[in-house]
């Protein structure tokens, strides 16, 4: 009704100015009169028993607020899939870094001294387990059997597939852990307000998860607990589950202090030590093909290191299992996936959520199979890409809206893949002949990523969102979707503005506050734009229909003034003007979560990424010289935000591949828990990252949008490793690839040649 729509327009983010000028308030920017600071005393051994807590001399303990497990009024467990993880450990515990004692004081210096004066008498677990192989071999027991979940996805008849395979490739692939390194460390501020409500404010992705844990831990009813999201300085999954712990800790301290405000903000070292990271993985792949390249069978044994408690590992695992076959047609397949218990701190959600690990393995296996077949990686992918009429291995029918070949074609064109592959081979041959140290390589990854909760997850969530308007025609998006940088406070408003036919300036997102916003589900899983955007679009249409029916809003041709006038007329006769909608998944999403069969996602985004590297044989350094990312994501709601998501995801993937190595100390916690020695890409490290979108119709979201945020994390790892192996003729099979790994691989390659 107002002409050009907001959806699809590169509009400036609504939060841009406040963030650029430093006016946005993050949790550590908050302070209130009488505020105390909180701190946490943690276990040091990799599991064991806390036998005694000693409050040492030289500290006036009467001036401190002290909380231990026995002070918890409600349930001592975070409310996750299982209730196995205590909010505060007492007696037996499973990993180093578990919180045992909480302290609060107004003076931060005294607080630091007090933390150092608490001595935990720990009897350590004599045989901690730190690797997937050791856990599965039961060299030490974290929990009975050391396996949280064991999933199987079987299709066709593996033996029949093996019988017709002409060529078989087998490989073992591993990925390391990865730390989120959101630049804002985690933190919460808790207090009891004048009305007696426990208010917890902080940095988080999922306010209703935090609310669930707070009510259970404090024993309060949901009406007397309120969770408010502050401006959040990055999440990437890292602020999905752990904020519930910090909120509970801050709340317990505040309750103990009679409701005084308590701020608990981690420093970087504590944040890296204690909070979850990406699950390390090891994947065994056997894959066979007919001589012409058609896949005959696929046998995958996928395992994730879940760490010491269940947390989100079952769902990370299920996404990893479902993505393990990649975007390829294969009639006979078996994927077994296990989430394994170790004595590391629990691993958890991180952008991609299990898919980057299993996609890495299948993509590397495809390269190995191509080598065994005498085909190029491109040729093998062309033969096997899912096409309309196919069914994916999980069982999802591929409809005519999918044109993966077009995505691949554009990636080849934009990267000039074929010509560069040839040129690099010639360059390498020339340099080898001349004794020069530089080698070049190019790598290709083809992949897809399902958006939204897996399988029946969205049915269970039944997310709700609202749109409301005031007398002046100012509209608010009312949802629990947290802005953590990904742009939903702009993109969701674009969707609603178009559905109402008002200019974008009229629409803002209301503050995420559990006393005001309904539960729209957690802000995870590439679901915000697609799932919450869709219900907001429906709610906005309902609100508009209500104005047409009851306030004389013209069906066509109303401008924003007519809209405002209609809002005012409506509110003359009604107390509020709002409309809500609840998510109902499309009928096509039918999923059997026992046998892992059906259509696990409402939409997949499709992508082909090409990486180019130059390796110096003298220093073994890998320089990424080019990166091309082509993806099909349905309707692009905001091209600047979307490109920013892909660029940022790609660079996190570059870090995963080439820079970021979590080193474990003898107690199974991160030894390099500082920005000084955990290295993420800097401005000077990145190549030109070229991002292209295709917008095929049919996404399950508003205006045909699909989920986007996690997709770019999946491709860089395999594409970059393929490029390194292409440059060097090596068989590196794990990430990250640091110079020392290149050196080892070069030595292995020359030994292979000599043999």
């Amino acid at each position: 009704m107002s002409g050009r729509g907001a959806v699809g327009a590169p509009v400036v983010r609504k939060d841009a100015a406040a963030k650029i000028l430093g006016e946005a308030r993050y949790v550590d920017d908050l302070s209130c009169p009488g505020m105390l600071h909180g701190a946490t005393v943690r276990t040091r051994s990799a599991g064991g028993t806390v036998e005694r807590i000693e409050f040492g001399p030289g500290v006036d303990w009467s001036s401190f607020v002290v909380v231990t497990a026995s002070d918890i009024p409600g349930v001592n467990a975070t409310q996750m899939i299982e209730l196995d993880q205590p909010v505060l450990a007492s007696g037996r515990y499973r990993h180093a870094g578990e919180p045992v004692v909480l302290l609060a004081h107004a003076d931060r210096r005294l607080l630091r001294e007090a933390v150092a004066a608490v001595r935990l008498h720990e009897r350590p677990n004599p045989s901690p387990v730190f690797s997937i192989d050791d856990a599965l071999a039961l060299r030490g027991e974290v929990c009975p059997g050391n396996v949280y979940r064991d999933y199987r996805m079987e299709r066709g008849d593996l033996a029949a597939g093996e019988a017709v395979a002409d060529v078989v490739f087998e490989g073992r692939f591993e990925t390391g852990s990865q730390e989120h390194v959101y630049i804002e460390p985690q933190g919460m501020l808790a207090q009891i307000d004048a009305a007696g409500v426990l208010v917890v404010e902080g940095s988080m992705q999922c306010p209703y998860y935090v609310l669930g844990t707070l009510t259970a831990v404090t024993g309060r009813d949901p009406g007397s607990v309120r969770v408010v999201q502050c401006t959040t300085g990055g999440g990437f999954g890292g602020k999905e589950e752990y904020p519930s712990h910090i909120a509970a800790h801050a709340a317990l301290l505040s309750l103990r202090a009679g409701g005084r405000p308590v701020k608990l903000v981690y420093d970087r070292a504590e944040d890296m030590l204690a909070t979850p990271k990406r699950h390390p993985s090891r994947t065994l792949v056997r894959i066979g093909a007919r001589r012409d390249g058609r896949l005959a069978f696929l046998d995958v044994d996928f395992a994730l290191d879940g760490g010491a408690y269940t947390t989100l590992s079952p769902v990370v695992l299920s996404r990893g299992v479902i993505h393990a076959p990649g975007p390829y047609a294969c009639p006979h397949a078996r994927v077994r996936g296990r989430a394994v218990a170790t004595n590391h701190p629990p691993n958890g959600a991180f952008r991609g959520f299990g898919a980057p690990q299993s996609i890495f393995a299948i993509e590397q296996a495809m390269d190995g199979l191509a080598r065994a077949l005498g085909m190029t990686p491109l040729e093998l992918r062309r033969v096997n890409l899912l096409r309309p009429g196919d069914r994916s291995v999980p069982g999802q029918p591929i409809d005519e809206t999918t044109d993966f070949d077009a995505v691949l074609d554009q990636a080849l064109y934009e990267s000039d893949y074929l010509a560069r592959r040839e040129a690099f081979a010639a360059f390498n041959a020339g340099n080898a002949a001349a004794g020069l140290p530089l080698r070049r390589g190019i790598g290709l990854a083809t992949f897809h990523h399902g958006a939204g909760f897996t399988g029946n997850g969205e049915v269970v969530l039944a997310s709700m969102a609202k749109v409301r308007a005031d007398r002046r025609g100012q509209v608010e998006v009312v949802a629990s979707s947290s802005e953590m940088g990904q742009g939903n406070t702009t993109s969701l408003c674009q969707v609603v503005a178009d559905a109402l036919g008002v200019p974008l300036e009229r629409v803002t997102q209301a503050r995420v506050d559990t006393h005001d916003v309904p539960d729209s589900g957690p802000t995870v899983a590439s679901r915000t734009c697609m799932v919450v955007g869709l219900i907001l679009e429906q709610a906005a249409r309902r609100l508009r229909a209500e104005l047409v029916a009851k306030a004389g809003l013209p069906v066509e041709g109303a401008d924003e003034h007519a809209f405002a006038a209609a809002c005012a007329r409506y509110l003359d006769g009604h107390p509020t003007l709002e409309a809500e909608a609840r998510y109902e998944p499309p009928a096509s999403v039918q999923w059997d979560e026992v046998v892992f069969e059906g259509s696990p996602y409402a939409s997949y985004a499709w992508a082909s990424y090409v990486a180019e590297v130059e390796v110096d044989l003298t220093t073994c350094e890998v320089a990424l010289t080019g990166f091309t990312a082509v993806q099909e994501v349905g309707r692009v709601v905001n091209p600047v935000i979307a490109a920013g998501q892909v660029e940022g995801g790609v660079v996190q993937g570059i870090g995963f591949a080439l820079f970021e190595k979590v080193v474990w100390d003898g107690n199974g916690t991160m030894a390099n828990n500082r920005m000084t020695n955990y290295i993420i890409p800097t401005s000077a490290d990145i190549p030109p990252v070229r991002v292209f979108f295709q917008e095929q119709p049919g996404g399950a979201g508003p205006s045909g949008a699909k989920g986007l945020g996690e997709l770019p994390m999946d491709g860089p790892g395999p594409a970059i490793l393929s490029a390194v192996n292409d440059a060097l003729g090596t068989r590196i099979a794990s990430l990250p690839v640091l110079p020392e790994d290149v050196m080892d691989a070069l030595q292995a390659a020359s030994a292979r040649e000599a043999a």
Partner: protein
Amino acid sequence: MSEGPVLSFTLNGRVFSAADGTVPSPAMRLLDLIRLHAGQTGTKEGCGEGECGACAVLVDGELANSCLVPVGQLHGCTVTSIEGLPRNDPLVAAFARAGAAQCGICTPGMVMAARALLDRDPHPTLEAVREALAGNLCRCTGYVRIHAAVLDAAAGEGTAGGGAS
């Protein structure tokens, strides 16, 4: 006249001095003085050890990580943090247009790093921008749009960003 050591500097045009008690201790980190005493929270703490650049400010026009600067070193200096940057600085609009801020926690420091660059090199190359911002970590953007914003601001006007085709 004064018996104790003389220590006085300006932060965003306001004088802080040991003499009048506005500098409580020469050992205090500049970051804490800015955030806790001046109450200007636009300067952020990301790591506390000079690696991330979220706390970057200008000291006499030079980029400095305020978490590593004891205020005792600042006698006679002029300190500018994000609150001291004019709202009409071309970097502000350029960052917004390009989509260079996502979560925003690195952004004030990033803008100060870019300001330090443009003050010494008003028309930098992309390579110079890449290097000048290498001490400021961003985990959201992948830096692409930040580079575009700085080049856009340097050009005075224009259209950076705009989204990939």
